[in-house]
C-alpha cells in the first residue's frame, strides 16, 4: 500500500433529510479543483428483501461515533488512492422504498482511482460504519442481520501486506 500524500478532508454527514447528489457533486468539484474524475454512488431502499416485501426501512446510528467510523473508512481510502476528496452522506430514520439512503463521491485526478475508491468506501460502509437497519414488512419488523457476502466484498480489498482491519 502506498500512502498518497493528500490534504483531502473527509466530508461526512449523517442526516434524516434527503440529499441532492447533483449539488454534492458540484460542491466536491469546487472543493477539489484539478480532479479530472468524480465517481458517485447512490444507494436506495429496495422494496424487496430476501424473504418478502419491505414497506419501510429504519436506520439507527450512534451520533458522533458513527460519523467518526465513516471518517475512518474514508481516511483508509485516502491512504490507498490519490484522491482530491471523498464525500459520504448517509441518511438515518425511517425511509420508504425508492428513497435514497447513501451517497458516496470520490474525486481524483484519474478515473480508475475514483472508481476504485468509491467502491472501496461503499464496501467498508457496509461492514465498518456504525449503522443499523430495521426492515418493516407487512408481517412485522426485524433488524437486518449482517451479511456474509458484505464481509467478503470488504475483504477482497485486503491483499498480502495490507494492514489488517480488525
Amino acid at each position, binding site marked *: 500500500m502506498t500512502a498518497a500524500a493528500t490534504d483531502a478532508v473527509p466530508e461526512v454527514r449523517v442526516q434524516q433529510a434527503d440529499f441532492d447528489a447533483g449539488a454534492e457533486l458540484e460542491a466536491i468539484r469546487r472543493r477539489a479543483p484539478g480532479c479530472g474524475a468524480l465517481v458517485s454512488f447512490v444507494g436506495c431502499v429496495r422494496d424487496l428483501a430476501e424473504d418478502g416485501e419491505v414497506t419501510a426501512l429504519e436506520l439507527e446510528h*450512534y451520533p*458522533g461515533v458513527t460519523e*467518526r467510523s465513516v471518517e475512518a473508512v474514508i481516511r483508509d481510502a485516502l491512504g490507498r488512492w490519490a484522491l482530491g476528496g471523498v464525500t459520504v452522506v448517509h441518511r438515518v430514520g425511517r425511509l420508504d422504498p425508492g428513497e435514497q439512503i447513501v451517497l458516496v463521491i470520490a474525486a481524483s485526478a484519474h478515473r480508475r482511482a475514483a472508481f476504485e475508491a468509491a467502491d472501496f468506501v461503499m464496501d467498508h460502509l457496509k461492514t465498518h*460504519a456504525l449503522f443499523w437497519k430495521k426492515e418493516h414488512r407487512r408481517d412485522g419488523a426485524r433488524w437486518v442481520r*449482517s451479511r456474509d457476502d458484505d464481509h467478503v466484498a470488504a475483504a477482497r480489498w485486503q491483499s498480502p501486506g495490507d494492514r489488517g482491519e480488525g
Partner: protein
Amino acid sequence: MSSVRVRYFAELRETLGVGEEEIPVGPEGASLAELLEHLAGLHGDEAVTALVGPGIRLAVNGELDAGTPPHLHAGDELAFLPPVTGG
C-alpha cells in the same frame, strides 16, 4: 451522582427496553463484570446474555473495541453495539 452512562443500539435497545441509562458506580469505578452484574439485576439474565452475545462490540467514550474488558469510571459512556448493517 457518580455514574456510568450505558447505551444500547438497535435490537439491544429493544431487548433492554431502553436506549440509555445511568448506572451508579463508586469512587473506584466498576469493572465490566460488575457492571453486567448490576444490569442483570435491572433487566434480568437474558438481557445480559444478549449484551455479551456473538458479534456484540463495545465502545467506551466512543472508542470502539478499546481492548481488554474495560474498567469504567464515573462519567464514562459504555455502548453495546450489535453487528452493523449500514450502506
